[in-house]
């Protein structure tokens, strides 16, 4: 009996700590607007999206602590956390919620039908069922897709390697955006007589192996904005340099890290574009009246040192197209 009593006591203490801790902190401050941002995982590209959203808000007079309350949560790669964050945000009733990445945006859309949701870094919101079409959705969901025009990507590859016959594609089979791009690449390249060899890497540690498996089989390696690949880009660069395979990326940040060329969307600008939608909603527009957009700023970054290392001579034409040339 005594034991039971002690036991109840200790459990009670635990329960009190858990319940009271968050309450004590919900004090004061009367912000005008409340924006909540969630990302499925933290890595440079997604962090840049977030930064873009925040800077766009700031430049438009929404200052944190003055007339804006900003909340940010990352799910640390766990879907259970993503789901819990979605529930937390919805219960806090912000004016707009920004979802970065497909699973986070889906969790938000499954939790609320009333609070405006702005998704970003989702390649195809229609396939992801976030919006029924590319028209204004008439629901609480809109946003910016990071889909790239693959035709311009392929044109750039042809400029780097005019006799292009085979492309190697390193990606994670666990990322929906990467598999969509693979599917679309195959559809575009097959009629052109160009083959694509896909080398899946489930974990970042498998990327060098995947790259080595392409040695002697491909004319160049193309990478999309795959979270795994982007976060371990250096390991890929090392293999490309050693085996003299040109490396082409679709994320401008990858060029300074060792890709010969990267034609893509700056994720920071993508965030800016999403931020513009957030502001339109804060100013009273309904999310259902704003059609989902595709990121509209692409830029070409060339790395001349990388070209040298990977045995490619760049034409003046492509050099003149570059928005930025790095040599390191």
């Amino acid at each position, binding site marked *: 009996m*005594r034991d039971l009593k*002690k*036991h109840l*006591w*200790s*459990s009670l*203490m*635990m329960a009190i700590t*858990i*319940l009271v*801790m*968050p*309450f*004590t*902190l*919900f004090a004061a401050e009367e912000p005008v607007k409340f924006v909540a941002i969630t990302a*499925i995982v*933290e890595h440079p590209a997604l962090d840049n999206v977030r930064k873009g959203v925040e800077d766009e808000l700031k430049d438009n007079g929404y200052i944190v602590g003055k007339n804006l309350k900003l909340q*940010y*949560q*990352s*799910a*640390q*790669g*766990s*879907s*259970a*956390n993503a*789901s*819990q*964050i979605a*529930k*937390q945000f*919805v*219960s*806090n009733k912000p004016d707009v919620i920004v979802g970065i990445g*497909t*699973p986070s945006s*889906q*969790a*938000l*859309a*499954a*939790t*609320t*039908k*009333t609070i405006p949701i702005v998704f970003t870094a989702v390649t195809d919101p229609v*396939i*992801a*069922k*976030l919006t029924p079409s590319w028209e204004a959705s008439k629901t609480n969901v809109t946003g910016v897709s990071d889909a790239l025009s693959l035709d311009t990507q392929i044109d750039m590859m042809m400029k780097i390697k005019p006799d292009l016959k085979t492309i190697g594609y390193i990606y994670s*089979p*666990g*990322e*929906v955006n990467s*598999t969509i791009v693979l*599917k679309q690449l*195959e559809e575009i390249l097959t009629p052109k007589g160009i083959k694509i060899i896909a080398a899946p890497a*489930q974990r970042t540690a498998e990327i060098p192996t995947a790259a080595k498996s392409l040695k002697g089989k491909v004319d160049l390696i193309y990478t999309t904005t795959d979270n795994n690949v982007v976060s371990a880009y250096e390991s890929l660069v090392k293999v490309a340099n050693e085996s003299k395979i040109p490396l082409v990326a679709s994320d401008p940040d990858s060029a300074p890290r060792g890709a010969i060329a990267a034609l893509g969307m700056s994720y920071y600008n993508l965030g800016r574009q999403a931020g513009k939608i957030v502001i339109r909603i804060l100013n009273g527009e309904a999310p259902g009246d704003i059609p989902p957009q595709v990121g509209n700023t692409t830029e070409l970054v060339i790395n001349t040192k990388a070209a040298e290392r990977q045995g490619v001579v760049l034409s003046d034409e492509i050099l003149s197209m570059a928005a930025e040339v790095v040599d390191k």
Partner: protein
Amino acid sequence: MSFEFFLGSLEIGLIYALVSLGVYISFRLLDFPDLTADGSFPLGGAICGLCLYIGVDPWIATIFGTLGGCIAGMITGWLYVKLNILQLLSSIIVMIALYSVNLRILGLAPYIMGETSRMAGSPNLPLLGAETIFSPFINASYTNQYIVQPMMVLVFVIVCWLLLNRFLSTQKGLALRATGTNARMAKSQGIPTGSTIILGMAISNGLIALGGALFVQTQGGADITIGVGTIVIGLASIIIGESIFPAKRMWVITLSVIFGSIIYRLFIAVALGNELLQNIGIGTEDLNLITAILVVLALVLPKQVKKLLYKRGKAV
């Protein structure tokens, strides 16, 4: 913590309570270190998602998801019992294989529906707008969602808990417990330990897959990443439960496992919702660390409080 957020965390805790119950059967009752969970949780979700996507009745879809988990568990048990592969290794083999299987299952749905011409795997199957077991009870504006979903999951948990307790006191259930405690003795008493282990693994992973099937229906999509860390969450929940409510009777132990899972989710809720932490510069990147510290506290505090009370009692 607002009431809505509390209920939301409760809902996820209850879903993962099914996982903890499953993990409890393999780890504690059978003494089988089973990592299949990381594959069977998304397997349940993937099968259920596939069925929902092609328009199967959501209740049947949930059952199919559960059965998928049972089969995965049976395979793990079979690899160990019949092929004599190490327990840990056989579960890892099944877990790895399930990753590819899950990609295939998730990719199958759009192919069946004729939305894509290629039968390729996919890491994400959207279920937004699909008919789920919850949708008939949720109003158009989703305002009652935060109360309907946890209540329905609670019913699932109670039913599974009752059935499990019932089962564990049958002859088969007792045989299962004996096998886990001392396989050699159990065998000498005439218990077919091999088939008992396979049965136990089937029930264990069936429960885990049921959790996965319910999870995807609340999540708006089945994603390959939902499996990451399932086993860790399950184990942490068991240990928290056992540490806070130590007990000897089977029905109390299983109940404590359920509470453990809910408490684990409340820890995460605290870590997420705590603005003081955020104001002093601690962000979500520290989420796992905060959770780890809170789990350690949960493990240590009850014992320390007990000790303190004991000492005081002695002094008086």
